């Protein structure tokens, strides 16, 4: 048995050596994006087919970061190019990323300055962007409250709409991504808070914030209670558990692509201080341990080419960050989401928020705080003022420790953003 073992060990060792030799020419694209199997397949076959020998490997956040950290600690590795969200990079030490000046820029100055991660040089290159939108089954449209324009809804109208649907069908038909993998915290940070308080951090515990959470409770009353299990609202749109939903553009895409005639996409609602919305920004970067720096840089440049950006849009439903002429034959999900985002950012009361910046390793804790606030106030029904006052102290601690200045829509600050 032990002879067998040695033999097998030797064979597998030899196989490893062989595969290591052939792998040399390949650039490993280590990504947290385009993870669903269909998107990964499209990335490999369409987006990266013209980029030479690229091994595209999408991962969960945990293994992605652990592997990356291990390679950085060991001082050598196999990862050539990283693909991740702004938040993933901002949690890293900028010294671990190669400076990428001169490899390309996005069309947005804001994105380019975010990508510097507080240093003077580009630490990642903006790669693709998305946002969160509303989507509805057309069956829900007759229940819209009187006088409401679907492209200019308010939160009150959304709540009234939910009530109407509940009265008509006997079921709560609003769907909210409050599941374990749902992106609920982004709704609070980028939509609810900016729409009601014109801020995210400064106004965290303000009286306006109390109103915002009261509205959230009202909205939750007409929300499908199973929402605490919903993470990808396309599933609930398709199976009819929810008729009106809020989610990430790529998380409702399948509904539009499968049954384009059944659903519509529209902007997020507005509150007293405007129509808050938040972009999602993904970037490509190169770790300092990349085995073949030139090949990695070539791949980064490839990702920024207009034709690659359009192929990426088709594959992942993430929009280009460079100026490109969009073709007319895009998939239904892309058209629907693109229109909704355009209406949202072009609306008169638009109040765009930025991605949390400068939080570094505290980014996860920051989002967790908003999630906990939601759980305590809305799910557990605790007193709003008490919860906000308690969490306010924790929020200020996070801001002080990370030293992050305020970002829009909060008014700028010198030093850490104060919680007022």
């Amino acid at each position, binding site marked *: *048995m032990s002879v067998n073992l040695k033999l097998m060990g030797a064979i*597998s060792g030899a196989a490893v050596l062989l595969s290591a030799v052939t792998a040399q020419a390949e650039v490993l694209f280590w990504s947290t994006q385009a993870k669903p*199997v269909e998107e*990964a*397949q499209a990335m490999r076959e369409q987006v990266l087919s013209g980029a030479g020998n690229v091994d595209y490997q999408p991962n969960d956040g945990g293994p992605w970061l652990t592997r990356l950290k291990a390679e950085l600690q060991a001082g050598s590795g196999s990862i050539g190019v990283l693909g991740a969200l702004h938040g993933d990079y901002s949690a890293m030490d900028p010294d671990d990323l190669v400076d990428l000046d001169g490899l390309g820029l996005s069309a947005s100055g804001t994105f380019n300055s975010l990508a510097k991660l507080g240093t003077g040089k580009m630490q990642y290159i903006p790669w693709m962007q998305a946002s969160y939108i509303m989507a509805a089954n057309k069956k829900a449209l007759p229940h819209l409250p009187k006088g409401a324009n679907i492209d200019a809804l308010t939160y009150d109208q959304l709540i009234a709409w939910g009530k109407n649907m509940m009265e008509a069908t006997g079921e709560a038909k609003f769907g909210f991504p409050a599941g374990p993998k749902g992106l609920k915290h982004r709704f609070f940070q980028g939509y609810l808070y900016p729409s009601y308080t014109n801020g995210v951090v400064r106004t965290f515990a303000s009286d306006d914030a109390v109103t915002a959470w009261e509205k959230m409770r009202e909205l939750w009353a007409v929300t499908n209670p199973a929402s605490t299990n919903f993470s990808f609202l396309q599933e609930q749109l398709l199976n*009819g558990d929810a008729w009106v939903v809020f989610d990430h553009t790529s998380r409702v895409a399948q509904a539009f692509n499968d049954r384009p005639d059944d659903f519509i996409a529209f902007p997020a609602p507005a509150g007293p201080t405007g129509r808050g919305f938040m972009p999602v920004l993904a970037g490509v970067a190169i770790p300092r341990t990349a085995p073949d720096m030139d090949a990695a840089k070539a791949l980064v440049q490839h990702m920024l080419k207009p034709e690659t950006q359009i192929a990426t849009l088709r594959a992942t439903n993430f929009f280009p960050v460079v100026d490109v002429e969009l073709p007319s034959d895009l998939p239904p999900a892309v058209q629907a989401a693109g229109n909704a985002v355009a209406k949202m950012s072009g609306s008169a009361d638009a109040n765009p928020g930025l991605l949390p910046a400068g939080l570094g390793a505290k980014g996860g804790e920051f989002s967790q705080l908003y999630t906990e606030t939601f759980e305590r106030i809305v799910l557990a029904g605790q007193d709003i003022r008490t919860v906000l006052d308690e969490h306010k102290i924790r929020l200020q601690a996070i801001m002080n420790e990370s030293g992050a200045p305020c970002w829009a829509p909060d008014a700028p600050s010198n030093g850490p953003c104060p919680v007022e």
Partner: protein
Amino acid sequence: MTIASPEVSADTRKSGRYVYIASVILLCAWVIVPLYFLLINTLSSPEAVNSFPKSFVPDFDLGSLTFFANFAGMLSALKNSILVAGLTMIMSITIGAPAGYALSRFDFPGKGLFRFLILLTRAFPLPLLALPLAVMFIRTGLDDSIFGLALVHTTLAIPFAVLITFSLFSGIPIELEEAAWTLGCNRLTAFQKVILPLVLPGITASAIFAFVISWNEVFAAAVLTIENRTLTAFLLQNLDTSPLHLKFAGGFILVVPALIFIFAVRKYLFAMWGIANR
């Protein structure tokens, strides 16, 4: 207490029989129904998967399975999974069975502590261990190798291998061995001729356990392998964000090889339960 009349006892026997049959059916359904739903949804079109109520007969739409058939790297990932699980099985038994034998037959100082330490290897969550392990593997060149991953999985499987074989050996009276010694066997031949045939089914069972542990492990596999990914590392972490019909098909693909393996070695399993019943 009065003696029950014959009819009553026949009645009791009859209803007892119903209860028995009902529990057998319930237990079978417990295992089979989820697998059956997995199968139906794998063989259904995306529309059928998302619709409700479900039909009990699949419409034999092979779309989801065809997708995975064309998914780059599936076959090599499957091969890697089998290799890693196979190696894990062999290594955990070669290391675990002697340890189990030693624990059950010899008294040595620190025996209790040793048993405790073995269990302790399961006390640390893998995401915690993965970082230092990966750093070490990269430095020693074990990184991204099937053997390296099998080593990690063996560490996870050894506690079970040791404890299962320990109780197996303890279940066999030492007198049998002693009898063999008096009849001209030495320790080794006695073990080979008398003990081994008796415990082989049990050892197979713990080997299956090791196989399944390795087959199901995702985190270490995802961090420690890049080119040589196992099927679970390759598929599982991408499935949770995939559309429902592909989740079912992917789940099916992950389950089937393990089922086939267990089916192939089932008679050894039942043989072990035979021993346990004696």
